[in-house]
């Protein structure tokens, strides 16, 4: 038994039976992290001492007979989520030494459940990016091929789960930042409906789009993580109380999909997508059909508009959110000749190229004379995109589609061409704009052995349904069990 390869559920079984202690499990992960992180750069901060202290506390709770779904399980956290007492950088030089004085709500709930925190995971700066190359602390490398990107912005989270450097990881998804790296690294990633998990303590990127979620080794673990984090939080006025995830119902699901209507949007199979990706996704859809699902071709006619809408709305919101980094209350300060010059020098030195690009774009879109033409118009088209999904879900229960048009691309391939980079998210952006939920599950490999993801999308707050379909898919396939060829040297 390789301890670091266990799912959350398997780890809990070992802990419950006292076959292993949380301290032993935590040590196994820390040893593997220290052996591999210099190559993969998935962790920005490794919290050995805190992790072992948390593990000892968990072991004490286990000794007292407590048996809850995350007790003693080592996980790691994307570095845009605040962790009390542990440096939180958002992948940015401007926050290189920032130590939060409180926990994000999602983090606090996991802490209360007795999860063990191994450290903080690399990501694109302020979660802006699709390749993790925008991190101020260097790119993460894909465990399947270390010359390739892991996807982004939760690239460290995806690589860490894929390489068994944690049992599960927290990520965030604003336009695809959980689903796309999950696909490119061959792990499971659930983007929750907007409002299902509190954003309190998440360093804000685009507040009408940001969601917190998990990257895991399978869909059942994704359900465990969501169940631990979900629900209304008085500190986030956009968080919503919904029917909680039912793990028992998920577990008792048969492998029949009779009665399930699966929509396949024709706009998600475009010219220029990698043929291996289309082949694997079509095969996955045929697999769902073989399990009894009814497959219907549907249309989401505004799919291609997701990208221009997103790249107006998200930078606009980012330009406002990132105004708080002024070199006064926290973060870097570069002293200038006067106050305005200090702001400009601080932000010019502290932010990286993509963040500055988006602040510029957002400032332009919100500036006098352009607000109606860009921002309001984009929000109107967003309404149309949301209606496309609402109409589709009158005919089908879930939608099946690719996650990204290609598998993992080489490091450096797209850094000089922002539009090409943005196209990596063309199939994930519309779901984010509509505020609905979607999961990425491994569904095959390309000719170079790189993983491919299937995206299963559901209506707002239909995570239970999406997780059940993903769970049934994984009980009848083994793509999610394949491990990347990364070994300590």
């Amino acid at each position: 038994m390789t301890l670091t390869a266990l799912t959350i559920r398997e780890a809990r079984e070992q802990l419950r039976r006292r076959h292993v202690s949380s301290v032993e499990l935590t040590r196994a992960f820390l040893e593997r992290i220290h052996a591999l992180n210099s190559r993969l750069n998935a962790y920005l901060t490794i919290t050995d001492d805190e992790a072992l202290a948390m593990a000892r506390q968990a072991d004490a709770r286990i000794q007292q007979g407590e048996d809850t779904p995350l007790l003693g399980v080592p996980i790691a956290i994307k570095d845009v989520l605040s962790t009390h007492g542990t440096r939180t950088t958002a992948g940015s030089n401007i926050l290189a030494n920032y130590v939060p004085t409180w926990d994000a709500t999602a983090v606090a709930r996991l802490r209360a459940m007795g999860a063990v925190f191994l450290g903080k995971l690399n990501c694109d700066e302020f979660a802006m990016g699709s390749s993790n190359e925008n991190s101020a602390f260097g790119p993460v490398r894909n465990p399947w091929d270390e010359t390739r990107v892991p996807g982004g912005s939760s690239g460290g989270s995806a690589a860490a789960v894929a390489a068994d450097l944690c049992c599960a990881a927290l990520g965030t998804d604003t336009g695809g930042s959980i689903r796309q790296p999950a696909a490119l690294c061959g792990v499971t990633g659930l983007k929750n409906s907007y409002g299902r998990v509190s954003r309190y303590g998440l360093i804000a990127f685009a507040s009408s789009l940001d969601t917190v979620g998990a990257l895991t080794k399978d869909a059942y673990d994704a359900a465990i993580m969501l169940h631990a984090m979900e629900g209304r939080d008085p500190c986030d006025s956009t968080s919503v109380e919904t029917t909680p995830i039912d793990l028992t119902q998920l577990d008792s699901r048969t492998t029949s999909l009779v009665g399930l209507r699966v929509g396949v949007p024709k706009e998600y199979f475009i010219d220029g997508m990698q043929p291996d990706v289309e082949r694997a996704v079509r095969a996955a859809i045929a697999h769902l059909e073989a399990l009894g699902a009814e497959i219907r071709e549907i249309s989401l006619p505004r799919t291609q508009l997701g990208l221009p809408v997103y790249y107006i709305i998200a930078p606009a919101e980012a330009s406002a959110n990132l105004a708080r980094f002024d070199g006064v209350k926290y973060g870097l300060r570069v002293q200038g000749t006067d106050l305005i010059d200090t702001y400009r020098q601080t932000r010019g030195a502290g932010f990286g190229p993509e963040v500055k690009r988006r602040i510029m774009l957002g400032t332009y879109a919100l500036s006098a004379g352009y607000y109606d033409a860009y921002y309001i118009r984009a929000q109107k088209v967003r309404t149309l995109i949301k209606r496309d999904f609402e109409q589709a879900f009158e005919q089908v229960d879930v939608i099946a589609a690719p996650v990204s048009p290609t598998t993992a691309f080489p490091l450096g391939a797209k850094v000089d061409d922002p539009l090409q980079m943005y196209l990596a998210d063309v199939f994930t952006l519309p779901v984010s704009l509509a505020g609905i939920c979607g999961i990425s599950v491994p569904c095959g490999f390309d000719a170079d052995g790189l993983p491919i993801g299937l995206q299963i999308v559901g209506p707002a707050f239909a995570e239970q349904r999406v997780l059940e379909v993903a769970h049934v898919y994984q009980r009848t396939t083994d793509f999610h069990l394949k491990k990347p060829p990364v070994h300590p040297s």
Partner: protein
Amino acid sequence: MTLSIEEVERIALLARLSLSEDEKARYARQLSAILDYAAQLAELDVEDIPPTATVLSIHSVMREGDEVREGLSRADALRNAPATDGASFIVQATFGDEE
């Protein structure tokens, strides 16, 4: 469309960013390309479509009455500040000090 260097400088001032000459030239080119791409939105008829304010079907709610409880301590509030005197943030003068 092509953004001029002067327009880039105007936006950078609004955004409180200092940019190098290289950055100005690069952003002029890249922002123009992105805005050209976004121009396809201008071709749609969205006259009668309401803009999305939120994807949620929630409404404004009244907060419960104010309640006194422990908040951020002064020490914690100042912990990450680049310059403090132990009790306050130290900032530069907001108004000019010209004679």
